[in-house]
C-alpha cells in the first residue's frame, strides 16, 4: 500500500507514539496515511460541493480537502490525534462522493481508512462512547447475533410494544446526561425494519442450479445485515440468478466480510473476518463472487490491498477480490433469458454510495430495472449520501438524520410508489425516514417480482 510502512501484524494495542523524526508525525508506523497520497491533493476544492458534511456545515475542516489537510498536518507532526482531529474524521460518512468528484484521482478511501485505524489504536474515546461502539460491534458484524436481533425486532413489532413505546417516545425518557445516547438509540429504534420471520428462519440453499447447463457458476456472499434483516433479498438474489441460468453456491460457514469494521478503523477484527471469508470461498471454482450489499462489495473488491501484508492470504485475497461483483453487475452482463412480466410501478432509484462512488457501479442496476416491462424508474437528480453510511447514523445520529430527511424529501417530491437501492444500510435508513407509505426494495426484489409474474410491488418482499 504505502511502500513506506513497516510490514507486520496489526497491533491490537496502541503502538507507542512515534517520536518526532520517524516521519509519521502523530501517527505510528503501521500503515499511516500515505504521504504520497496526501500530496496528490492539489487543494482545488472540486470535492467540496460533493461532500455531504460540507453541505451541512459549510466549514473547511468537515470537507474532504480539509480532512486531507488535517491528515497532512498530523503526518508532519504539527497536530496531535486529539479530540478535535478525531471529531472531524468521525464526522466523515465515508461515502466517497469526494472520490467521484476529484479530478486528481486522490484515493480518499485509502487515506480515511488508514487514519481511522490509527485513531482506533492511538486515541482513547470517552467511556460512554467507547461502550456504545463496543456494543454496536458486538452485534452488527455477527450474522448470528444480527439474526437474534432481527427475531427480537420481529417479536418487538408483533407484541404491540413498539406502538406503545413509540407513543411514549421512550428514547426521550433516558436521563439527560445521556444526550448522545438518546439520539443514537432513537436512530437505532427508528431503523428496525419490518422483519419477515419466514425468511430469517429459513436457511439459504447450499447449492442450487438451473435447468440445463449453467451459464456461470457464482458464489453468494450472504452478508450479516442482509441475512439478519433482509433475508428475502438473499432469497430473491438466488432465485433471479438461477432463473438467468446461473448455478449458485452459498459457501458455509460464512461470517461478516469485515466491511463495517474496516470503515470504523477496527483493523484487527476486520482482517480476521476477511481471512475467514477468503477461507470460506476457497476451492469452489467460481466465475463470480456475488455480493448484494454495496458496502460489502466495495470491501471485498479491496481484499487484495487489505490482506497484502499477510503472505498466507495475499494471493488468495486478491483472487477473491478479482471475482467480486455486485449482483447487478452480474445480471447486467447476462443477456436476459428468463421471461419478464410487467410490473406496473413508478419507482426512484437511489445510488448507494458504496456502489456508485466506491465501485463506480451506476448503469448496471438501472439496466437491470430497465429490463422490467411496465416499470417507470425516476432519477432523484442528486446522488448525495442518505446518511446511513455503515454505522454512521448510529454514531453520528444528528447528521445522519438531517441527510436522511433530505433524501426522503427528495423521494417524496419525486412522487414515486417505492424506492429501489442496493444496500441494506440505505434500505434501513430510507425506511426510517420515508415511513411505511413508500417501501424500499433491492433491485433484485423488483426483478424477482417481474420473473414471478407479480403485477405490483406489493408482494415483492415475500419469501
Amino acid at each position, binding site marked *: 500500500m504505502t511502500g513506506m510502512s513497516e510490514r507486520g501484524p496489526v497491533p491490537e494495542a496502541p503502538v507507542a507514539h512515534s517520536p518526532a523524526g520517524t516521519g509519521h508525525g502523530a501517527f505510528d508506523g503501521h500503515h499511516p496515511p500515505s504521504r504520497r497520497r496526501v500530496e496528490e491533493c492539489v487543494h482545488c476544492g472540486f470535492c467540496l460541493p460533493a461532500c455531504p458534511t460540507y453541505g451541512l456545515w459549510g466549514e473547511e475542516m468537515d470537507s474532504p480537502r480539509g480532512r486531507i489537510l488535517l491528515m497532512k498536518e498530523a503526518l508532519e507532526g504539527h497536530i496531535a490525534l486529539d479530540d478535535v482531529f478525531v471529531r472531524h474524521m468521525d464526522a466523515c460518512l465515508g461515502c466517497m462522493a469526494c472520490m467521484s468528484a476529484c*479530478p*486528481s484521482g486522490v484515493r480518499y478511501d485509502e487515506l480515511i481508512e488508514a487514519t481511522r485505524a490509527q485513531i482506533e489504536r492511538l486515541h482513547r474515546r470517552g467511556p460512554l462512547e467507547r461502550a456504545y461502539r463496543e456494543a454496536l460491534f458486538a452485534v452488527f458484524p455477527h450474522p448470528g447475533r444480527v439474526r437474534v436481533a432481527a427475531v427480537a425486532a420481529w417479536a418487538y413489532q408483533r407484541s404491540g410494544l413498539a406502538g406503545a413505546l413509540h407513543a411514549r417516545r421512550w428514547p426521550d425518557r433516558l436521563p439527560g446526561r445521556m444526550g448522545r445516547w438518546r439520539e443514537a438509540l432513537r436512530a437505532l429504534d427508528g431503523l428496525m425494519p419490518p422483519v419477515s420471520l419466514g425468511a430469517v428462519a429459513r436457511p439459504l440453499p447450499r447449492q442450487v442450479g438451473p435447468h440445463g447447463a449453467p451459464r456461470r457458476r457464482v458464489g453468494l456472499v450472504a452478508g450479516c445485515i442482509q441475512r439478519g434483516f433482509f433475508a428475502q433479498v438473499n432469497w430473491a438474489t438466488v432465485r433471479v440468478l438461477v432463473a438467468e441460468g446461473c448455478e449458485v453456491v452459498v459457501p458455509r460457514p460464512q461470517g461478516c466480510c469485515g466491511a463495517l469494521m474496516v470503515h470504523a478503523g477496527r483493523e484487527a477484527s476486520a482482517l480476521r473476518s476477511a481471512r475467514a471469508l477468503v477461507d470460506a470461498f476457497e476451492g469452489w471454482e467460481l466465475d463470480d463472487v456475488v455480493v448484494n450489499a454495496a458496502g460489502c462489495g466495495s470491501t471485498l473488491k479491496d481484499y487484495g490491498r487489505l490482506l497484502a501484508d499477510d503472505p498466507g492470504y495475499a494471493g488468495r485475497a486478491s483472487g477473491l477480490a478479482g471475482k467480486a461483483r455486485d449482483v447487478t453487475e452480474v445480471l447486467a452482463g447476462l443477456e436476459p433469458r428468463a421471461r419478464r412480466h410487467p410490473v406496473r410501478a413508478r419507482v426512484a432509484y437511489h445510488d448507494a454510495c458504496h456502489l456508485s462512488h466506491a465501485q463506480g457501479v451506476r448503469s448496471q442496476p438501472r439496466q437491470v430495472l430497465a429490463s422490467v416491462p411496465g416499470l417507470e424508474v425516476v432519477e432523484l437528480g442528486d446522488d448525495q449520501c442518505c446518511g446511513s453510511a455503515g454505522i454512521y447514523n448510529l454514531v453520528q445520529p444528528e447528521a445522519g438524520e438531517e441527510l436522511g430527511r433530505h433524501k426522503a424529501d427528495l423521494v417524496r417530491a419525486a412522487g414515486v410508489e417505492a424506492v429501489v437501492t442496493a444496500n441494506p444500510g440505505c434500505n434501513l435508513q430510507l425506511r426510517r425516514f420515508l415511513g411505511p407509505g413508500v417501501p424500499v426494495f433491492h433491485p433484485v426484489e423488483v426483478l424477482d417480482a417481474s420473473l414471478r409474474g407479480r403485477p405490483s410491488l406489493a408482494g415483492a418482499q415475500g419469501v
Partner: protein
Amino acid sequence: MGALEEVKAELARVLPPDAVVTDPAELATYSCDGLAGYRTTPGLVVLPTSTEGVASAVRACSARGVPFVARGSGTGLSGGALPHAEGVLIVLSRMRRILEVDPVNQRMVVEPGVTNLAMSKAVAAHHLYYAPDPSSQVVCSVGGNVAENSGGAHCLKYGFTTHHVLGLEVVLPDGSVVELGGRTLDPPGYDLRGVFVGSEGTLGIATRVTVRLLRLPEAVATLVADFPDPSTAGEAVSGIIASGIVPAAVEMLDNLAIQACEAATGAGYSLDAGAALVVELDGPREECLGRFGEVEAICRGAGATRVRVAGSEDERALIWKGRKAAFAAMGRLSPGYFVQDGVIPRTALGPVLARIAHLASEAGLRVANVFHAGDGNLHPLVLYDPDRPGEPERAEELATRIVELCVDAGGSITGEHGVGVDKACSMPKMFSEDDLAVMARVRAAFDPAGICNPGKVFPTPRLCGEVIGPYRPHPLELAGVAERW
C-alpha cells in the same frame, strides 16, 4: 490582551459559538487557498451567516486595527485569500442562500457564498443561466468571482463577471454597509461597482450580489479538433476569428494538459494529439448550425488530424468536463503545480509556447498549457515535486519568467486569476510607479487604515525582497495631495 485577543473575545460574544474557530488544527485547514504553495495559519476564523455578522467581525477588526481577509470557497489561484497570521479570516461559505429570483427581469440576488454553478442550476427551469463560467464553477463562490472578476471559456463572447454583476451590498473596511451599483445595467453616478469588481478583496467584503441572467441559447454545437502542435491550432483560431464568426468559446489544450484531462474524466480527447482545440458556437439554431460547418472546414484546412463533433448533450457535457478538469487534474501528473495566468496576443501563441518549452527544459521541469484561445489568456501550469529539494523554488522562478515572457510578448500578467500574493512582485513590470500609486490611492479611499486584505496585489518589501527597492514618496505625496496608505 493583544488586539487579536480582544477581537476574539468580542466576536465570541456577538457571533454564535460555532461561528468562531480558534482551535489550531481547525485554523490550519484555512491556511491556504487553491495556491497551496503559500500557507499561513490565520489568527482567527469566523463563519458568519449574515451581513450583520460580517459587519460585526469587520467592526471588531477596524476598531483595533486588526487585519482581515475575506474567503469564499478558497479556490483562488493567486493566494488572494491567504490569511494573515495576526488577523481574522472571514469565511463566507455559510452565506449561501438564494435570496431572490426574478425571471421576468432576468436577474437574481444571492449571498456571496453561493457557488457559480448553483446560480445557473437555480434558474435553469426558467431557461436562464449565469454566463461567466470559470472552470472551478462547481465550487467557486460568486463573492470570489466578484473579487477576482472571474471569467471562463465562454467569456470570449459573453464577457467577465463585471459584465454580469449589477449591484453589490458591501461591508466596507470600517464596518459600514453600503450598496454599490443597483438593479439595472447602468445606474447613474460613478461606477463604484465597477471599481469593486476585480479588487481582490482589498476594498471590502461583498455580502449580497445582484447578477444578471441570460436566456439559454436555442442551439449549441461543440467540436474537438486535434492538431499536430499548438501553433497549427493557433492558426485555426486565427482563421475562425478572421472569418467573422464569434464563437461562444475556443479553448486549446497542449499534449500534457490533454493527458491530465483524459486521466481524470475519460472525455475522449486523443492522447497522441499535440494540441486539441475545443470550439463551441451557440445562438439561434439556423445561424449556429450553419456557421458550425464553416468552423469544421477551417479546422480541417488548417491541418486538423481529427475532428470530433459532439453528438449529444451528454457528449458535449463530457467534453467540457474534461476541459474544466484540466487544472484540478494536474495532481495526476505531479504532486505540485503553479498555475500562471498571462494574456498574450493570439498571434504570438506559437513563439511564446516555443519559448516556454525552451525555458522549461532549461529548468528541467514540465509545463502544461491551457489556453483560452479566443481572448489570448494563457495558463501555463508549471509542474514540480514539493519533496525534491530546490524544485519548488526552481518552479516558482520558472513561473515568474513565464509571466514576464508574456509581458515581453506584448501581453499582460493577469487574465483572470488575479494578482494576489503570487504576482504582486511582478506588478512593477507591468505598471509604472505612477500607475501603482494611483491604484494605491483608490485602495486607500476605501481602506485608509490598510487592514483589508493587506499584502495583496501591491508589491511589498516583505513579499518581494529587494525587487521593488526602497520607498520613494510619490509626487502626489510630495505635493501634499495624498498620504501613504
